[in-house]
């Protein structure tokens, strides 16, 4: 059962205020329970949690396991993830040309199912399985606005602040059992040292400017996405995000596209992705440098 409730207040048709609360439930997937897979090329294995013990035993009997990462007897059938979420949002139209949207949210997820390496294989690869691990709290606000100064120009801006943290880590910090290391010297971790979950930026935003010609044959779109620094992995052995060298620096990417209608059936699109040639080969290998493209699209009606 996943009860949800929401109320909405409206005023003068231009303002809407919405409150909602709900609970969620996510059962473990078939593969999280029963998968038994070995990648023939790379050599790693993934085993479902329900049969993890017996599968690990079989791998060990076949002499495929060098060592366990952690205690294999702690592996058990994963249970469902649970979530409780609260949201408050406000929408407003200021005349015909401006729209505002503001939202506050707080989500708590319990027993999040995570993939973890559980054993090292003799081929150097790992065996992965699933565990109910963390209690996560994610809270923040988002802000979005669309502004049309004229019929031909549209500006959209969005900003999001999210603080996503592992509640078990906060408990460890409160209990004084989590440490960090700086320049070879250990220290007790403070709440303010904790950077939250890996791969999550605290601040992120988008900005888009679109201009079209009065005839509607050409439009130009400039789009920027930005995100603040985010953690990529632990470097100082405490497994949580705390040290400055565990972050990927903030980044901002700009894209430009120009669309032109050549005939009623053909469209020309030219553009530049990653206008300022931002790259980070070490931490974001997927981010290619500047790419220029052109395409003609024919359509038949």
């Amino acid at each position, binding site marked *: 059962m996943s009860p949800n409730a929401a109320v909405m207040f409206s005023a003068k048709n231009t303002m809407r205020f919405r409150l909602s609360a709900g609970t969620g439930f996510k059962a473990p997937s078939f593969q999280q329970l029963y998968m038994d897979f070995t990648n023939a090329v790379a050599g790693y294995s993934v085993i479902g949690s329900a049969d993890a013990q017996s599968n690990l035993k079989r791998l060990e009997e076949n002499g495929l396991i060098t*060592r*366990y*990462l*952690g205690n294999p007897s702690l592996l058990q059938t994963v249970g469902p993830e649970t979530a409780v979420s609260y949201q408050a949002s406000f929408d407003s139209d200021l005349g015909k040309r401006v729209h505002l949207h503001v939202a506050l949210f707080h989500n708590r997820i319990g027993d999040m199912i995570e993939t973890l*390496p559980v054993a090292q294989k*003799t*081929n*150097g690869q*790992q065996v992965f399985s699933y565990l109910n691990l963390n209690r996560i709290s994610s809270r923040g606000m988002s802000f979005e606005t669309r502004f049309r100064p004229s019929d031909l120009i549209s500006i959209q801006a969005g900003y999001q602040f999210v603080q996503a943290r592992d509640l078990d880590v906060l408990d460890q910090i409160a209990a004084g*059992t*989590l*440490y*960090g*290391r700086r*320049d*070879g*010297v*250990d*220290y*007790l971790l403070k709440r303010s040292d904790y950077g939250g979950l890996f791969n999550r930026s605290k601040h992120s935003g988008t900005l888009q400017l679109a201009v079209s010609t009065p005839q509607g044959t050409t439009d130009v779109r400039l789009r920027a996405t930005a995100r603040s620094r985010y953690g990529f*992995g*632990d*470097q*100082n*052995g*405490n*497994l949580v995000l705390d040290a400055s*060298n565990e972050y990927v620096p903030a980044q901002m990417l700009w894209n430009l596209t120009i669309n032109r209608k050549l005939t009623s059936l053909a469209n020309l699109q030219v553009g530049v992705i990653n206008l300022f040639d931002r790259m980070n080969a070490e931490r974001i290998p997927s981010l290619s440098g500047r790419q220029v493209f052109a395409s003609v699209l024919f359509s038949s009606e």
Partner: protein
Amino acid sequence: MKRSFFIYAFFCLSAGLIAGCDSTSPNGASDPVVAERASDIPSDPIIGLGGDGRPVGTNTFTFFNVRTGDVVAQTDSATTKWDLGFRGTTIIVNGGTSGPGNGAAKIVEGVFADITDAVADDMQTDSESGYAIPVGSGNGWYNYNPALQTVSPVPGRVLIIRTADGRYAKVSIISYYKGAPTTPSASDEARYLTFDYAFQPDGSLLFE
């Protein structure tokens, strides 16, 4: 071997305390315990690739004497001249199944410099069922990061060591990589240990 020295604060503020500063005083403070850093001690470094393409070393321990701060020759492995042995991520003590000495160890939680009085309870010795300093990621002194393929010492874990001759030292592992880089990567030269240690010669566990 590069060493840096830290001397713990040791003050004698008044004449009444001067007696306590006498290093021969049996129950007062003795000479301050000096913490030293051992850098890049080889821990069976990789010498090549094995038959299955995995990197291998010579599968031998490097022996270290925390009383003198010296690396001990391999030929002295059956003596009490060493206190700690290093091979990859495995650390042994000179006692039990590992050596002829009185060595033992345990892991305590805390900041190295702040551990000033340990207790000798629960000291473990190397045995058939396992080493005093457990192996495996998260069990002993290090965590293995599977995404970055790096070994990082767990901050806040201090090894309390009983030496081969029954005295005590505390040890904090700093790095598993040559040159102790603050941001180690899988391409750094692994199996070189850098660690801080402090030996208390008077036989007590007071590291002040």
